[in-house]
């Protein structure tokens, strides 16, 4: 794409290594810039689609007793509108922007697991098209994005299954992206960029990434319970058999409320990048902002009950949730005040992105303030599930997210594409959306106070709602006009427009090192960083980077490489090789998609086969693309620094990825455990002695088998690390082989327990949850066995040996978590019923 002829040989080689695949192979690209751009484009298309659904709803509601669409269609419209905006736009858009920009902000060449990003992207597209497309076949989910049972558990048709399986699939992709981004922030920084120097955007990515790890798994656990009830009649939410629909509400909102902040914080992060640039000074109160962001993240997990003020919970829970909901306004306010202080203490230049920042602040603040109103339980009892809340949530999300994302697009567009968007059109875009937004949503506060509930496909005339609804409909079309203009500016061909000047806004952070147009290598060489705004305060930085005088200016071995640094003080410790273009991620996503999509139609054998193919693709990808044995141990990365190429244990990114992923996994597991004890509190009269019939023998054998496998794996890893004797690999393979056998025996014993005791999961919720927990553990143990077999293969092929132990370190880490899972499962299902 760029003229390589005037580059020196070193740069030409670097360009060749990082160049994008051509032609139809372009879809095998995995580099963060390509995947990030596709990701953002796909999320944007889903936004437009959900926007069209909203317009259809507004047409239906323009006048009372309208019959533009049927009740059933309307219910599909609002369900999909909410679900798409939440799961296919808001969260993916954050991940897309972060995948695109985070490495650039950190001067990294790529994220640590580019193929994982690509896998996440393809999962997102496949799942998203599946869920969205369902409306064209009149089978879309139709009971709200919150899917409350028993309405949804009893509903016939595919809609609910499409929601549960399609979105679970996407949630898994979101978690994959979160793992990638967290490690990106922690390990892929330029030398010298200590944790207190990282761009605020990276801090927010870190906070939000961790929130995703703890927020999405409870929903995935809920989805699992839900789909087991729908598909196999396990009575998790059926009151007549000990279940409770409120468990779903708890799990859903433990996810749902942090979700709001998962959407909101990253866009605050965009403001934190835009504001200092236009205030022409560094951000004011960096530490306060970071602490407030972390505080918001923590508090957001304590508020979910405020979505349930009307379900009749005890006054104490309501009071607590109310106070916590008010308290979260404080860290949010600190962030906002720090931004205002930055503006006050700086010399502001007004450019288009700042106009959108104003829109964002003006609208979000009102949404936040009405949020304070609804946090007061008695007021919420009136407006809960009315148009007041519809207004409130759109003020927070469109204000907090919509406007700041558009501000970010105008601001970062030159860094991403090399060309600027049209500022004159931008003014029109702003005023159309801003005015349209307020015409649509400001009256809705009043509509709600006048008694109009949400999620109604029509309403009766004469209740005072007619003109307000007409106004909202008109406003919605004004927003649509603004969005159409914006979209047009984004997609119109710009090849005749001039390239943007480099660093057009005179910003201070590393993403503005990019050349116009950008080169696929990210940066020519990776600079050492000593300040928060290196482009402004480190003279000659750009020249030194461009002329390859900084770190890692070459790719002389023909491999894609990036620097890995330590978590706190960013000391370079590894020159890591990352994956290049590959179709494996795409295939793995297609087959994973097949598993979920076939399961939706209850074609379980096809789903199973697709799952096996997904497993095969993932194993191939791991085998051929990760933990490769380098041809030399160390590499000179410039400026006299020599770094190892291979790392294992907690020095390697793979180990961190396993650690973080398992946190998410354990969160999902603990959500199921929470379910068990929740059922215990609502079934006071259940004879727990029934559960004791599981006995001690089978669980004991399971403990011995899986526990033994765990100890043996741990020992094998330790021995491989420490023994100097030659031929240790064979002994290790033998130990791991025995461990795998023990584990299989343990899995068998785990299943035999409830099978022999005759637990019927359809009869009552306790046998059902017992089966589920034991099954969950058994499935994890089977995955552990596959990992052990992978290690044995590695030992025989040489990819795993005394010198290269990463695989076994990661697998042992997995087994630590697995043993914890087993222990908690047995304590809950075997020991607890005997004590209770």
């Amino acid at each position, binding site marked *: 794409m760029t003229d390589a002829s005037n580059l020196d040989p070193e740069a030409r080689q670097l360009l060749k290594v990082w160049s994008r695949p051509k032609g139809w192979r372009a879809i095998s690209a995995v580099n963060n810039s390509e995947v990030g751009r596709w990701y953002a484009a796909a999320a944007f298309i889903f936004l437009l689609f959900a926007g069209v659904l909203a317009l259809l709803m507004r047409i239906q509601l323009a006048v009372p007793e309208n019959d533009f669409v049927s009740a059933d269609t309307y219910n599909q419209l609002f369900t999909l509108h909410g679900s798409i905006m939440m799961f296919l736009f808001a969260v993916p858009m954050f991940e897309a922007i972060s995948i695109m920009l985070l490495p650039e902000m950190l001067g990294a060449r790529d994220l640590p697991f580019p193929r994982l990003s690509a896998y996440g992207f393809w999962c997102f597209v496949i799942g998203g098209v599946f869920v969205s497309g369902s409306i064209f076949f009149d089978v879309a989910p139709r009971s709200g994005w919150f899917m409350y049972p028993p309405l949804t558990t009893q509903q016939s048709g595919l809609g609910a299954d499409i929601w549960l399986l399609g979105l679970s699939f996407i949630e898994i992709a979101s978690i994959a992206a979160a793992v990638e981004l967290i490690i990106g922030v922690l390990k892929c920084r330029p030398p010298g960029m200590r944790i207190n120097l990282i761009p605020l955007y990276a801090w927010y990515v870190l906070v939000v990434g961790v929130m995703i790890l703890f927020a999405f798994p409870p929903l995935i656990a809920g989805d699992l319970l839900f789909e087991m009830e729908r598909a196999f009649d396990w009575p998790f939410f059926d009151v007549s058999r000990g279940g409770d629909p409120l468990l779903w509400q708890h799990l859903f909102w433990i996810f749902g409320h942090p979700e709001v902040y998962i959407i909101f914080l990253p866009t605050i992060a965009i403001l934190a990048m835009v504001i200092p640039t236009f205030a022409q000074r560094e951000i004011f109160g960096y530490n306060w902002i970071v602490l407030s962001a972390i505080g918001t993240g923590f508090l957001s997990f304590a508020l979910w009950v405020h979505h349930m003020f009307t379900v009749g919970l005890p006054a104490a829970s309501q009071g607590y949730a109310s106070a916590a909901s008010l308290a979260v306004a404080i860290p949010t306010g600190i962030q906002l005040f720090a931004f205002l202080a930055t503006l006050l203490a700086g010399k502001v230049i007004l450019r288009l992105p700042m106009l959108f920042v104003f829109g964002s602040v003006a609208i979000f*603040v009102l949404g936040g303030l009405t949020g304070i109103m609804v946090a007061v339980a008695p007021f919420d009892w009136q407006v809960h599930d009315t148009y007041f809340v519809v207004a409130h949530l759109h003020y927070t999300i469109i204000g907090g997210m919509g406007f700041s994302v558009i501000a970010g697009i105008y601001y970062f567009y030159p860094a991403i594409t090399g060309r600027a968007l049209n500022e004159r059109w931008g003014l029109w875009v702003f005023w159309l959306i801003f005015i349209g937004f307020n015409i649509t949503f400001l009256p809705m506060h009043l509509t709600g106070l006048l008694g109009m509930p949400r999620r109604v496909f029509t309403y009766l005339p004469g*209740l005072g709602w007619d003109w307000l609804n007409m106004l909202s409909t008109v406003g919605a079309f004004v927003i649509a006009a603004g969005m159409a203009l914006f979209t047009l500016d984004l997609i119109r061909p710009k090849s005749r427009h001039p390239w943007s000047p480099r660093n057009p806004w005179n910003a201070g952070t590393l993403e503005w090192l990019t050349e116009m147009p950008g080169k696929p290598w990210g940066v020519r060489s990776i600079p050492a960083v000593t300040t928060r705004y290196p482009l402004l305060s480190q003279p000659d930085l750009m020249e030194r980077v461009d002329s390859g005088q900084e770190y890692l200016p070459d790719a002389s071995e023909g491999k894609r490489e990036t620097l890995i640094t330590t978590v706190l003080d960013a000391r370079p410790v590894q020159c890591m090789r990352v994956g290049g273009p590959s179709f494996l991620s795409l295939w793995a996503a297609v087959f994973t998609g097949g598993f979920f999509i076939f399961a939706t139609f209850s074609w379980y054998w096809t789903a199973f086969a697709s799952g096996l193919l997904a497993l095969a693709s993932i194993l191939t990808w791991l085998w051929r693309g990760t933990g490769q044995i380098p041809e030399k141990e160390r590499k000179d990365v410039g400026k006299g620094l020599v770094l190892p190429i291979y790392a294992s244990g907690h020095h390697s990114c793979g180990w961190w990825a396993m650690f973080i992923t398992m946190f998410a996994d354990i969160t999902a597991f603990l959500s199921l455990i929470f379910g068990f004890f929740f059922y215990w509190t609502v079934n006071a009269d259940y004879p727990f002695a029934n559960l004791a019939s599981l006995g001690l023998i089978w669980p004991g054998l399971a403990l011995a088998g899986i526990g033994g496998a765990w100890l043996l794996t741990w020992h094998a890893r330790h021995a491989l690390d420490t023994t100097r004797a030659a031929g240790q690999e064979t002994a290790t393979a033998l130990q791991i082989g025995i461990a795998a056998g023990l584990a299989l025996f343990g899995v068998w014993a785990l299943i035999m327990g409830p099978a022999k005791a005759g637990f019927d999961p359809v009869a009552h919720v306790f046998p059902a949850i017992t089966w589920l927990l034991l099954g969950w553990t058994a499935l994890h143990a089977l995955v552990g066995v596959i990992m052990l077999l992978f290690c044995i293969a590695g030992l025989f092929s040489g990819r795993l040996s005394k010198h290269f132990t990463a695989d076994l370190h990661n697998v042992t880490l997995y087994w630590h978590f697995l043993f914890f899972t087993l222990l908690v499962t047995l304590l809950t299902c075997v020991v607890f019923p005997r004590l209770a």
Partner: protein
Amino acid sequence: MAEKDWQPGECPLPGCLPATFWLLFLSGCAGEQSTYTAAGVEAASTLTLYYWLFACVIVVWLLLAGIFVYATRVRPKIHSEKGASIFVIVGGIVLPTLALTVIAIVGIILMTQHRGQEAVRDIRVTGEQYWWRFEYLDHEGKVIAETANEFALPVAEASRMHLITADVIHSFWVPALAGKVDMIPGRINELVLEPIRTGRYRGQCAEFCGASHALMGLVAKVKNSEDFQRWLSAQADDARPPATPLSVRGQQVFLQSGCGACHAVRGTPANGRLGPDLTHLASRDRIAAATFANDQDKIRRWLAHTGQIKPGVQMPTFDMLSDTELAALAAYLGDLQ
């Protein structure tokens, strides 16, 4: 079909707030389903709470937006770091903490006041897709009278609603009287209603409950004590026998068409429990869960187009009946005073 015969509520505005704050929202005062109507103790106190919160919101919003405009448009001289620190500490931490503490305390006090009060009467309300069953209970919990979709309350007396569901989650809400409370399988929730003004107030299901969630309305009639007692004893009575030849014919159609399998008309062989009790249907202002005015025309239309009017409704459409049968049936139902 809209009848504008509700009693427009007055806005009990606290006189100490400047009028400008609610000027915009004054139109909200009238409306039989409006929270501004505030005809119940809880709704009135919540309305006062709302005005205070609303005033705070406007003040804070104007302040913050003003600061933003000042910083970006007026472009003042550069403020000092120290000034900025004070600004963040006072504006971002101290003031919000104080204000939010007050709001939290007020909220919690109001919350405890409005839940768990004493009441003199018990009414069991069952949410069903897509209508409401009301049962007035005596002190032993025995049903005195049953009605559907339209119920009465005495003014200035506290009545306890026991809220349950027959199927999925619903939410009971009469905005003019009090906030909403959900009806959840396996649970009995309570809500005390204490009206302060007589009149007719509309309510509606507030938790999405399926295809026709939008059409699950109800009417609360607040009467003075004597009127209420008269109403209640009338509701407890059996149905009057049909008076005209047409309505006698209508009763035959009713029984022959199997209506009695789902609907009860007390004092006749019709004793179904699945659908609304129709014993005193004609005493109600509206039909089809407060959707239509209760007249012959609407009843006929409802019977002949049930599923079309209310998607997902359990009642079958009786379009197989001839026009004369429909007219007779409507006449019979119109006679059930």
